[in-house]
């Protein structure tokens, strides 16, 4: 089966006054139809920029410098704006972090969804409303047809995110990029949305790139996980093996800092130091200054170690049977 999405050596840089920020530096991965990929990392690791690169919405002064993104055989890097726009919302959709900020507060849900319907072909007022209402029902909004005339502030946070998800689903996209879509929600709502997304993706065969800093949500949702650090993928593999037995010291550190793994009363483990500035990254492994296993070898670029479908980019990976 050929991959739906094939990213090769993607470089997305931001050309700021202070210098070039290499937000995404040589990211490669592929995604099969219907697969759910978790993209994990701290703030500033480049996971969101990777997501925005996929949908062609990197804001200036950022741009994709080199690399290739093939979507269903079509190269997206360098694709003209008009062609990219026809893909967006139709075949590749995106859901954002904060539904209170994404929905327009002065338009009704129905008006906004109708705009999204008509962005990809003519539709009568009635047809657009009908499609919107049916999609809202699919994401679990009761009495959807009547709710079309409501404004975003009349919905709860979780319901607003369902509206955003429904908007993304309108045209039955093959890929949805979800940028921390549950971060702004209550924990109980998070679980509902997660379950809903998983169900929708399986039902419709939609592939999902789920960007999150939260390992717990990723482990319950994704088939595979990519761990990013300082613009690079440091580890990837099936979600259960990777999170049960991580090979990169950074992944290990992320897992150890989860409250669930600590004993009650004990202090939480945290990774010492903070994410490096991407403006002046020293040569070698970017994680070395914070890594308990670092030595002289880490001053050179670490190799990609591939074993049994898992990848780790480290001079001193943890043993598989840890």
């Amino acid at each position, binding site marked *: 089966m050929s991959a739906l999405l094939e990213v090769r050596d993607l470089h997305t840089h931001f050309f700021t006054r202070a210098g070039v920020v290499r937000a995404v530096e040589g990211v490669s991965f592929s995604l099969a139809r219907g697969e759910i990929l978790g993209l994990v990392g701290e703030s500033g690791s480049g996971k969101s920029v990777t997501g925005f690169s996929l*949908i062609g*919405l990197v804001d200036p002064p950022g741009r994709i410098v080199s690399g290739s993104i093939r979507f269903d055989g079509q190269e997206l890097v360098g694709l003209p704006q008009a062609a990219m*726009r*026809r*893909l*967006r*919302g*139709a075949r590749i*959709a*995106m859901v*954002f*972090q*904060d539904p209170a*900020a*994404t*929905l*327009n*507060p*002065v*338009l*009704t849900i129905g*008006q906004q969804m109708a*705009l*999204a319907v008509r*962005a*990809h072909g003519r539709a009568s007022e009635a047809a657009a409303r009908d499609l919107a209402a049916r999609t809202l029902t699919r994401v679990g909004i009761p009495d959807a047809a009547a709710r079309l005339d409501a*404004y975003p*502030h*009349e919905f709860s946070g979780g319901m607003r995110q369902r509206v*955003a998800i429904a*908007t*993304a689903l*309108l045209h039955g996209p093959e890929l949805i990029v979800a940028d921390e879509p549950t971060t702004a929600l209550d924990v109980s709502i998070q679980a509902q949305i997660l379950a809903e997304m998983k169900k929708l993706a399986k039902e419709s065969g939609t592939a999902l790139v789920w960007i999150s800093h939260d390992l717990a949500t990723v482990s319950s949702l994704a088939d595979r996980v990519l761990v990013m650090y300082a613009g690079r993928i440091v580890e990837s593999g099936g979600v259960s093996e990777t999170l049960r037995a991580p090979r990169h010291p950074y992944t290990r550190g992320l897992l150890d800092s989860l409250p669930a793994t600590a004993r009650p009363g004990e202090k939480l483990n945290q990774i010492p130091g903070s994410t490096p500035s991407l403006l002046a990254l020293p040569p070698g492994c970017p994680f070395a200054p914070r890594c308990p296993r670092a030595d002289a070898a880490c001053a050179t670029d670490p190799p990609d170690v591939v074993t049994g479908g898992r990848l780790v980019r480290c001079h001193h990976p943890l043993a598989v049977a840890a």
Partner: protein
Amino acid sequence: MRPLSMPRYCVAMLGFIIQRLLQSLLVMLAMSALVFAGVYAIGNPIDVLISPDATQQIREDAIRHYGLDLPLWRQYLAFLGRLLAGDFGRSFVFDIPVLELVLARLPATLELALASVLIGAFIGIPLGIYAGYRPEAASSRAIMAVSVLGFSVPTFWVGLLLILTFAVNLDWLPAGDRGPVVEVFGVGWSFLTAEGLTFLILPALNLSLFKLAMMIRLARAGTREIMLTDTVKFARAAGLAEFTILRRHVLRLISIPLVTVFGLEFASTLAFAVVTETIFSWPGVGKLIIDSITSLDRPVMVAYLVLVAFLFVTINLVVDLSYALLDPRLRRGGRA
């Protein structure tokens, strides 16, 4: 925090409107007292009205005729009493009812002010949105340069230039005065005929320059801000065309400050289009008030300024009501 249902919302709005109308009555009362006292301080209208070589008898008759022999507060109370009966008094100079005088001139100013504000909005808002959408483009910088000129170049100078260029040198448009009027509902409007429009164009353009500059600035600032929000990103992610995003999302989101300024500018142009009306000898209320100040025609001044206060309050009320139309979050009612 649920919004009110439509009927309850209307009741809340009605209360709000009544409250605002009562406030406007107070504003007008204060305004009339201020003007009354102010004019009294400037000078005695009798000195202007009657030639210096008139006999003492004529002087005293005139003073008594206009009620100027009474103390100020009694004159004021008498004025208020007549006002309640709908009588603004008679002009000292023209000796006709003030209301008739002002209302005869008001349509001219009304159409001039409306034309200039509309020109400012319909040209300024698209230009401003464009300048905010592409702030780095050379064309956007040119638009901003025009807006700086609009703010800083004096109106009278632009007015004279317009006359010089389009009336004197090119001879395309009349240099001044108001064209033929068509009577609708008993008042004359000049914008209804092509010839009348030619008279309206130059003064309206002249007046609109400042408003144009203002609309450009506001629309640009708003657009720049909105373009960075997730609302725009989300719309783009849904595949909306850029023009649709600007027209449907951005324009709606920046409309509240635009409507506010539109209302204020409309009101202040109605009241104080004096310079332009003078240059283009446009027979509006601006000219009337200047004439009445020089001749100390107190009834006209008082009536005019009270009317201006009323216009300001009314236009602000309409602006406030339109907020609720533009932003559903403001329809919560309750305490208006």
